[in-house]
């Protein structure tokens, strides 16, 4: 058991240090993705014709393997965390943009008309009506993006040990210590489950106005890549129910 947490010194981090690093490399891109997706989605809502090409573009970007991204980026950003995080941020758009667009579009016509009729201008309408009502859809998108990002960080080990917990996989190989690989996979999975649970809690806190018993917001899971499936996905419904 002690060998389980006895990490090789070339990692330059304790187990907790790796966890912190992993979370940072996974979550900052999602946050950046969210900040980018909000205005992009708003443009897509405003100009309907923009949505299909934007959707196509995010899908194409998502289809680029991370390795190819690294090859291009490494010339500019070197073997750094940034090289790992940029592709992750770009990937998150494929989930977040449609989630926000669907969320904002789900606001009933009469609600919007009522807001207009009461003298809310476009900015107030967006901030006070559309965005709050889109919160469940946005968080559903964030859940998929976050879990997928946490699992994808590991590939960063390919560019000079920038994969946080993923670096353990490399070391398991080099030092013939399979328990390090087990450590990597389990820790990543637990992080994904916890992050997902935190988002579920956040949604419950932000949406006291939603009927609690009937209908949960549709998850945008279809948009997720098959290879991002983690144990967290199976645990999600149970966790959500536990949080109720």
């Amino acid at each position, binding site marked *: 058991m002690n060998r389980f947490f006895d990490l090789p010194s070339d990692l330059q981090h304790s187990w907790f240090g790796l966890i912190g690093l992993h979370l940072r490399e996974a979550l900052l891109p999602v946050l950046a993705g969210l900040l980018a997706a909000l205005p992009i989605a708003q443009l897509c809502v405003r100009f309907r014709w923009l949505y299909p090409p934007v959707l196509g573009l995010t899908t194409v970007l998502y289809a680029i393997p991370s390795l190819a991204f690294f090859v291009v980026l490494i010339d500019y950003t070197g073997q750094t965390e940034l090289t790992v995080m940029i592709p992750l941020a770009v990937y998150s758009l494929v989930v977040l943009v449609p989630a926000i667009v669907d969320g904002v579009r789900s606001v*009933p016509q*009469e*609600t919007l*008309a*009522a*807001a*207009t*009729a*009461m*003298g*809310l*201008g476009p900015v*107030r309408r967006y901030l006070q*009506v559309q965005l*709050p*009502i889109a*919160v469940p859809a946005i968080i559903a998108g964030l859940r998929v993006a976050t879990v997928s990002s946490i699992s994808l960080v590991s590939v960063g080990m390919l560019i000079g040990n920038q994969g946080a917990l993923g670096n353990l996989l490399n070391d398991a190989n080099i030092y013939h210590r399979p328990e390090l690989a087990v450590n990597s996979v389990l820790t990543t999975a637990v992080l994904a489950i916890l992050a997902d649970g935190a988002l579920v809690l956040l949604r419950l806190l932000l*949406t*006291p*106005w*939603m*009927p609690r018993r009937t209908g949960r917001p549709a998850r945008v899971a279809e948009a997720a890549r098959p290879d991002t499936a983690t144990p967290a996905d199976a645990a999600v419904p149970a966790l959500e129910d536990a949080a109720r």
Partner: protein
Amino acid sequence: MIRIDSVTKRYPDGTVAVDRLSLEIPDRSITVLVGPSGCGKTTTLRMINRMVEPTEGAILLDGADVRQQPVNTLRRSMGYVIQNAGLFQHRTILDNIATVPRLLGWDKRRARARAAELMERVGLDSALAKRYPYQLSGGQQQRVGVARALAADPPVLLMDEPFSAVDPVVRKGLQDELLRIQGELGKTIVFVTHDIDEAIKLGTMVAVLRTGGRLAQYAPPAELLSAPADPFVEDFLGADRGIRRLSFFTSAGLELTSEPVVDVDATAEQIAAAAAAGTPYLLVTDRDGRPLGWSEPGELTAGAVDPDRLLSPGRPFEQGRDSLRAALDGAVLSPTGWAVAVDGTGKVSGVVSQAAVGEAIRAAHAEDRTDAKVAG
């Protein structure tokens, strides 16, 4: 006063929703826009608060073009009630109602106090204040919609089919409530509906629109019923407009008789005296004078009247307050063909036969025609 001055709305796709419409909407009264689906009612209403801009013509509010004000200032000075309430699902009932006061810069406490006051005014239990819209019934949501529109005390209220999504019983309650509130507040209300009965019940003036956004007739409801301008309006009013028109004639002039009325403790002499009036039935009342039911004189035994064996008294009408329509309804529904009139306390003030109601209707029509001639 709101003046709609030769307004036309042509949507970008070429649809003419409103065609050279002119209307003068009087202050402090309810003006109803009614017509079949797609005839331009919503478009007209939304041109008043500039959610839709007219293609031609102008809308004047107290003499000034509505386009002279900043659009959001204009909108905040007009309450708007929308079909299905259109509540903000993410805000509590209290905060929904406080929306416009907050936009106008009231502080939170004052806005909420005002919202609480309005909840009471529209008949909402204060226990609902902290709830969210999904926790309310359709009728309650509509009340919140009305309260929200009234929150900043705007002089003008625009209502677009506000009661169409609720069942008939709740709708009647909401209509009565609106009339009561209007009696207290005296707003200038423009009310859109496709239900002609609602238009006739609520409207001081009723504008009937036909498909294509043309005005078919603009008149008070009684005039609409008595003198529809053309076959379209006549058809739109429906088959029984003659009966419905009776709602506008008072029952005050009906001649009642109390001869065939006896109370439950009547003596044999009293029963015999009542029977001598010659009517086929006698009305029995309780000791307080409230109607119990009808009976043939021969069936009544003094001192042993069995209320359970009496024929139902039907639905009594209150003379003076109810219309001739209620009196006729009472007579038609009564098993004996006689309507029972009561006073404000529910005591029988007399009975009246179908024939006598018919006589009163003829007299009222004749008087109405003379009035029309004098007025014309």
